[in-house]
């Protein structure tokens, strides 16, 4: 395994402050490198001012830096136009903008929206609620026992009445990497726009919008080494003037009279109110950090960890793993027989191993797995083989304790 990791770990202050911490809850939120934290500090200590074109240096440089991050984000996902990028507070908001601001207008009674059986609540409830309001159908691509999408159903699920397909790139529960190119091309043959939930993949896996041809793509800064409260909505040009904002207010307008408002164009029309400037600047810094790494080796590395962990896990007779997808990111779900997932997570937490137990905001998927909750371990580049070993040995201790 590449030894680069120890030096990477030293870039994340949380591990100097908690040397014993084994952080395996990366799918929930990643830790932040010093450079990202420093960019937020610098912003507040040296540059803090509101944007929207103030005529003093602080404000104009805040504006410039905020806008520059659109470039960085566009480059990260291979989009040619920085104005394809709208800043939101996170994946959840990005999806809601598309659901309420775009889809709702198009959706008629009897139409349908297609999602998969492994979606995060954020990529389910917004569509469900809009469908309910419009008397449209929410149709589900089923998930098989291994945690793969059953794509044989896709052709029949996508009909002339389907108005949108929304699907996650990587499952936050089972780690499944979905064949989104294939799915998108299938949908596009029927002229159905596709939203990709890249919350688990952006910044960690290569995304090239031009090849991918996704119509919308959404993600959060905080899961890719960036700050909380900042996210991204990418939209293809052809939809941009069809997306209405969730929020109306200052900074998003051309002209306001009491009886009439003219709005700015996408992406600015969606960014009413004082934006999370420090969050967006930190996102830019996170992208710089990501680009300082070699993404391919990072993936190989976290994959190796994941496989190493899975092998060790499979050797423990008291462990029941969930899912065995064809292609998998570095996320693993399991249960310890006869010990409730919360007791597992609590036990591991007590020896400084941070894992998550619960439904991982994917209740319908868990329902189909036949359990109310699992223990989830998710890796990032700062994790090590030692983290795996410590987790496995803690699981063995746990079992002893409980029998």
């Amino acid at each position, binding site marked *: 395994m590449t030894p680069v990791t120890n030096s990477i770990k030293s870039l994340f202050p949380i591990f100097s402050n908690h040397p014993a911490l084994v952080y395996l809850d990366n799918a929930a939120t990643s830790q932040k490198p010093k450079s990202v934290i420093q960019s937020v500090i610098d912003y507040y200590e040296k540059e803090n001012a509101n944007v929207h074109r103030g005529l003093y240096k602080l404000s104009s440089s805040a504006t410039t830096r905020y806008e520059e991050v659109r470039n960085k984000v566009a480059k990260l996902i291979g989009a040619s136009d920085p104005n394809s990028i709208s800043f939101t507070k996170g994946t959840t908001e990005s999806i809601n903008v598309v659901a309420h601001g775009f889809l709702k207008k198009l959706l008629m009674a009897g139409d349908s929206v297609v999602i998969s059986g492994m979606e995060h609540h954020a990529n389910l409830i917004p569509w469900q609620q809009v469908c309910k309001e419009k008397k449209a159908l929410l149709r589900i691509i089923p998930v098989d026992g291994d945690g793969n999408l059953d794509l044989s159903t896709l052709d029949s699920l996508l009909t002339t009445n389907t108005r949108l397909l929304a699907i996650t790139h990587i499952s936050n529960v089972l780690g499944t990497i979905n064949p989104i190119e294939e799915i998108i091309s299938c949908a596009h043959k029927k002229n159905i726009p596709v939203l990709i939930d890249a919350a688990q993949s952006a910044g960690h896996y290569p995304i090239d919008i031009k090849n991918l041809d996704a119509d919308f793509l959404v993600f959060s800064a905080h899961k890719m080494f960036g700050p909380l409260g900042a996210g991204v909505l990418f939209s293809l040009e052809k939809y941009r003037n069809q997306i209405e904002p969730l929020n109306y207010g200052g900074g998003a307008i051309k002209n306001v009279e009491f009886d009439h408002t003219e709005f700015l164009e996408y992406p600015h029309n969606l960014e009413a109110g004082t934006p999370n400037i420090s969050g967006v600047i930190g996102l830019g810094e996170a992208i710089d950090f990501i680009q300082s790494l070699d993404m391919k080796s990072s993936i190989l590395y976290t994959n190796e960890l994941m496989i190493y962990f899975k092998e060790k896990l499979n050797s423990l007779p008291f462990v029941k793993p969930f899912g065995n997808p064809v292609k998998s990111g570095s996320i693993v779900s399991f249960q310890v027989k006869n*010990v*409730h*997932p*919360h*007791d597992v997570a*609590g*036990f591991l937490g*007590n*020896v400084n191993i941070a894992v998550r*137990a*619960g*439904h991982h905001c994917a209740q319908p998927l868990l329902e189909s797995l036949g359990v*109310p*909750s699992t223990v989830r371990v998710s890796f990032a580049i700062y994790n090590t083989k030692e983290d795996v070993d410590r987790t496995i040995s803690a699981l063995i*201790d746990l079992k002893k*304790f*409980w029998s």
Partner: protein
Amino acid sequence: MSADLKKLYSSVIKAHNETPYHFEKPTTTLTIIKAYNPICGDRFDLYITSPITDYRLPLTLHFHGFGCAISKASTSVLIKSIEGKSLNDAMEIVDHFLRFINKELRDKELILPDEFLAFSGVHDFPERLECATLAWKEMKKYLESKNE
């Protein structure tokens, strides 16, 4: 493995978790008290099968559902502690347990049954407070509604 954790999962709790008291779905029920924590997914149903007469709970109560060891054991202890009790006594027991968990008891009130004391480990794990009190809080609401 830490002493804290040993205390949290005391033998009493482990026993109640493994063989919970009256852990079954009765065939007929009159009232189901739902104890559900949406955030962690713990979910227990507490069953009242016969009517409350003379302000007294039925002699037998049951519960069923799923949840972590702490919430399961605490529900088990709840059922065991209050079945057959008068509403007033039950209320006092429930109140006492909740005040104990929330560290609101005065010293002289600290003489408690072992099965209550078994939960003192929760004091070191604030994130498990909810687990220990889930069913108790719902029962309290129910008893209050009956006492009105």
